[in-house]
């Protein structure tokens, strides 16, 4: 086992104190060229690309018996890099993920039960209807994958061990993504590609290979019962025998060379285009493109534009290997390209306006990232690919504010471009300058919902709770996943299933049954009417949580262990310390471990359920347990009086200790139950997670009536700290105080808090300052993540048409605030007309 510190580990560059010098038009708009390219991309039809499916099926069917999993993955990528279509378009950054402007790959090794019969395939933006020819290919290949994909391998074991059908657990809304959303998120070191170049990685691989003892003996595997100590730096927790390291390193070499080959194909195309181009301007541009593609990603980027091209090549290549929401995000991108930007500016090679446009062209590339989703995933993933781009943060070396000019340029690029991705997020700390924060407010005001804010301090504390590491690493926090944080470039990315908090309420009232179908799942702990005190009631509920959280953990652990058969050699090659350890990140090759455990949704709904149950049944005794059971079972039909009391019971979000304390207790218990077991490789770095994305909608649809007054099938509450619409009647300061109590974000790996604002609240400099003071108070109080949605005219118009979905929209002006939907129509119109986007 290698414990030496590699000479290639990135040294944090010495930073001079930064003086922000900017030179762009703060009222600037999209250039005509960019606008045209943007329109073209977003109008492009969603297409399914079956080429990779054919290659993948072919390679697996021929080589599965003799090649290692790493080598197979590399062979697939190698063939794809040679065989796929390459072409140039109006975007000066080269490289297309698939054979189409907006195309996606099927990943048959995840799950494939649906691909044989489906004629329509959902991508993140749009649906592809297959042609006859494509159908033939899909069906042909699909046959091979039946029984071979992850889902088909996991489910029989779960069935045999627990008697549980995973699909049923999804169908009744107990959880999601037990085995269809996995696949090692890669959070690579972009610096490796930009500053070192991939040829340097090849040299490093050769060096490690020269030291490999191919006859080495494999040490006991932790999954075989031996649990190793805490994960320590440069110490692999899961030793691998040397011949496996050899295979892994060879696979890295093949993958890197394949990517360089793809880049060279683009260089050749651009060279050809330049040769036949008459327009001297265009000719020069083609020559520049050729120059860039023949230099990066093989060699260190020399310019800002090369840095962006290198960044896109590695992202595109890794997504060609494996695609998934959150996979291979830009992370602390401004830090990675700053040196190149600075040099270009100093040497007069680029202006800020040019940099902004080039960044926007890169945004377009990010917006071509997508994948074909299975029908379950398509329900809730919708249009997200969560390419989080972290702004702000600390300088890893000095601990000073890390914000640089590129942070500002990105905010400005997005203000003008309004692209759904990348998702801008700010790593918030007290050294951020007011100027920078005002730029953030300017973007929020446009209604795009970006940037979100994440606490640097909480992220660091969270990491320190679990890992040892030099302070330079601990400071280097990036937002990753949906609302989590990681040390970019040195961390593996595994996450577990998603868990519905309110389903336990249903099981409690029904004695272990899904009420809609009447079918029993798991244990039945007895008739709820046996509970004579609140504590008995809570203990009973607790037992359901205990059983089902454990089940979710077990299924996830099983899934992840099998996932080790699907390594990611290209991503691992650019993630520290996989090459040094000779191990893929799925085997624990990365220096740190993300440890994103089972993610809960419905925390606020569950809190409100507890509050209503305790208040009505045990404190006020206004509803007997018998009557509550009957009311819930009847979906409140004929029990509207009970539902009314349930709705008017204390609710989270008002700084009411009655509700908030009950919720806090449940969240603490959840974390405790969750952390009783290590992750799939025996590591105790695993943390519970808490965000909803759109799971609150999927879970709500499948969950029966709940004692907070919600009827069966109704949507649950968004995020995990936002209040149920219409129930937070005390305003944002009370809501924030509640939010600071419910979930401990140091113990949890994430929290998720969406707050809606009418733009009048952010008007003018004073409005913006007060808004930022609100944010700062939240972070000073120990908050982790907060995101503001500034409503737009379109939102308000939608609210007028569909008031029920917009119950929580608050409008405030001097001495007055009201829920939008309760205002009379004339006044609503007036407010709509006041809400304009020209700031």
């Amino acid at each position, binding site marked *: 086992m290698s414990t030496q510190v590699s000479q290639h580990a990135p040294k944090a560059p010495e930073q001079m104190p930064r003086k922000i010098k900017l030179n762009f038009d703060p009222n600037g708009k999209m250039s005509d060229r960019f606008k045209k390219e943007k329109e073209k991309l977003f109008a492009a039809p969603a297409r399914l690309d079956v080429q990779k499916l054919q290659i993948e099926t072919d390679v697996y069917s021929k080589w599965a018996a003799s090649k290692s999993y790493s080598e197979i993955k590399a062979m697939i990528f190698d063939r794809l890099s040679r065989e796929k279509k390459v072409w140039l378009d109006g975007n000066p950054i080269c490289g297309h993920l698939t054979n189409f402007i907006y195309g996606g790959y099927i990943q048959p090794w995840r799950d494939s039960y649906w691909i044989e019969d489906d004629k329509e395939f959902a991508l993140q933006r749009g649906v592809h209807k297959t042609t006859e020819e494509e159908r033939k290919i899909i069906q042909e290949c699909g046959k091979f994958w039946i029984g071979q994909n992850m889902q088909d391998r996991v489910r029989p074991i779960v069935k045999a061990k627990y008697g549980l059908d995973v699909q049923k657990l999804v169908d009744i809304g107990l959880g999601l993504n037990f085995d269809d959303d996995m696949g090692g998120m890669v959070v690579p070191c972009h610096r490796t590609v930009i500053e070192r170049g991939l040829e340097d990685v090849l040299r490093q691989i050769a060096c490690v290979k020269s030291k490999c003892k191919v006859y080495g003996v494999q040490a006991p595997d932790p999954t075989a019962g031996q649990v190793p100590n805490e994960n320590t730096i440069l110490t692999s927790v899961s030793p691998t025998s040397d011949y496996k390291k050899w295979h892994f390193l060879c696979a890295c070499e093949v993958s890197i060379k394949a990517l360089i080959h793809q880049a060279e194909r683009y260089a050749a195309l651009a060279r050809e285009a330049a040769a036949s181009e008459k327009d001297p301007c265009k000719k020069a541009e083609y020559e520049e493109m050729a120059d860039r593609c023949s230099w990066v990603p093989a060699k260190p980027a020399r310019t800002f534009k090369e840095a962006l091209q290198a960044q896109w090549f590695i992202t595109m290549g890794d997504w060609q290997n494996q695609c998934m929401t959150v996979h291979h995000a830009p992370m602390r991108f401004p830090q990675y390209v700053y040196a190149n930007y600075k040099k270009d500016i100093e040497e007069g090679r680029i202006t800020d306006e040019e940099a902004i446009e080039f960044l926007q062209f890169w945004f377009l590339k990010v917006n071509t990232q997508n994948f074909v989703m299975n029908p379950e995933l398509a329900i809730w993933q919708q249009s997200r690919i969560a390419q989080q781009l972290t702004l702000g943060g600390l300088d890893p070396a000095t601990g000073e504010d890390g914000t640089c000019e590129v942070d500002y340029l990105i905010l400005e690029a997005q203000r003008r471009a309004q692209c759904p991705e990348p998702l801008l997020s700010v790593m918030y700390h007290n050294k951020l300058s007011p100027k920078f924060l005002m730029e953030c407010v300017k973007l929020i005001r446009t209604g795009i919902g970006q940037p979100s804010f994440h606490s640097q301090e909480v992220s660091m504390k969270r990491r320190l709770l679990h890992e040892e590491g030099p302070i330079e690493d601990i400071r280097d926090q990036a937002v990753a996943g949906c609302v989590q944080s990681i040390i970019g470039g040195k961390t593996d990315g595994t996450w577990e299933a998603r868990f519905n908090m309110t389903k336990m309420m249903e099981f409690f009232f029904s004695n272990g049954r899904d009420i809609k179908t009447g079918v029993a799942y798991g244990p039945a702990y007895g008739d709820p009417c046996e509970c004579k005190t609140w504590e008995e009631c809570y203990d009973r509920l607790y037992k359901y949580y205990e059983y089902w959280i454990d089940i979710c953990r077990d299924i996830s652990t099983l899934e992840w262990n099998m996932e080790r058969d699907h390594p990611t050699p290209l991503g691992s090659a650019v993630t520290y310390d996989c090459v040094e350890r000779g191990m893929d990140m799925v085997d624990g090759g990365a220096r740190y471990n993300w440890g994103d455990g089972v993610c809960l949704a419905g925390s606020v709904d569950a809190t409100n359920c507890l509050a209503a149950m305790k208040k009505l049944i045990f404190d006020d005794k206004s509803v007997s347990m018998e009557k509550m059971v009957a009311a819930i079972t009847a979906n409140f039909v004929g029990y*509207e009086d009970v*539902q009314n009391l349930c709705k008017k019971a204390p609710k989270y979000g008002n700084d009411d200790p009655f509700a908030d304390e009950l919720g806090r207790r449940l969240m603490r218990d959840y974390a405790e139950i969750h952390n009783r077991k290590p992750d799939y490789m025996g590591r105790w770095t695993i943390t519970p997670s808490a965000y909803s994305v759109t799971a609150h909608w999927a879970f709500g649809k499948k969950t029966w009536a709940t004692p907070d007054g919600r009827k069966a099938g109704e949507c649950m509450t968004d995020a995990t700290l936002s209040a149920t619409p219409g129930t937070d009647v005390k305003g944002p300061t009370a809501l924030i105080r509640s939010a600071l109590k419910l979930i401990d974000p140091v113990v949890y790996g994430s929290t998720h808090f969406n707050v809606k604002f009418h733009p009048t609240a952010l008007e*003018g400099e004073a409005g913006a300052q007060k808004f930022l003071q609100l944010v700062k*108070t939240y972070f000073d*109080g120990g908050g982790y993540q907060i995101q503001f949605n500034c409503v737009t005219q379109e939102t308000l118009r939608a609210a007028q048409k569909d008031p029920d979905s917009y119950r929580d929209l608050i409008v*405030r002006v001097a001495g*007055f605030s009201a829920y939008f939907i309760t205002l*009379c129509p004339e*006044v609503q119109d007036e407010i709509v007309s006041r809400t304009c986007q020209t700031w």
Partner: protein
Amino acid sequence: MGTNELTGMVFNIQGYSVQDGPGIRTTVFLKGCPLRCLWCSNPESQTTPKDVLYIRAKCVKCHRCVNICKNGAISYNPDLEPEGYVTVNHEICATCKDHVCVQGCYESAYEDVGTPMTVDQVMEILEADQPFFVQSGGGVTVSGGEPLLSHEFLRELFKRCKQSYIHTAIETTGYAPWDNFKSVLEYTDLALFDVKHMDPVIHKQLTGVSNELIHSNLEKVFAETKTQVVIRIPVIPGGNDTVENMQATAKFMKKIGAREVDLMPYHRMGMGKYAGLGREYPMPPGVETPPAEKINELKAVFESNGIVCHIGGNH
């Protein structure tokens, strides 16, 4: 009555108020007002007793409330309300202690207006919001209604605020006996003082009372207290929005030494509440928020007199 038993009839406590004084503020709204301004956006604040607001937008016309109300305050008359809404007799509501309609309505179409709260109860909320005050230089603003109607409660509340280092502001019509006013100002850092019209006759037409007491109080605030004052003028189209009136106001301000004014453009957002209280909206139909050019014209009047003028309260 001991200070512990003093209560104020609170009809709303609004966190993150950003237009009622410096910083992030928590505004406490007290019920009861001697004025009846035509444009009032909080009509539920005008009377002192508890009341209920009937929110038509939430009503599903089930008419259960007609039977729930034991005092016969709610009735349904299809001739009066052909669309199916109920009629609420708010005079009866003012005498009702428990407002069962609020708890009883499944759609939450009734809202309590007015909860008697002790100084301790209000302080608990203010102290919880203190981190926001400290961060932003904010504090508490008591508004109404006319908060000086509850001057004993208010004085005690502000006294306690000062003990807890909370910045205090009052938003007032200025219409109260001077002694009451002065006793509160002893603990008041900032007064947002409404000046609605300089002409006593028009003032009475617009608000129901003459402006003499208001203007004499305003002079005394400057002469006898240390409280900072910002003058507030609601800009009411066709009511007080003439250059002449603003000129007269500016002259008066200069005379007494007032240096800062907020122009608060008229808005109709309280309109729905009148229906909820079973009352006619007193402003003539068709009056809309004054355009920016108009407001800027009036702003210029003050600035030419050397007075700092803001539009709106968020500054």
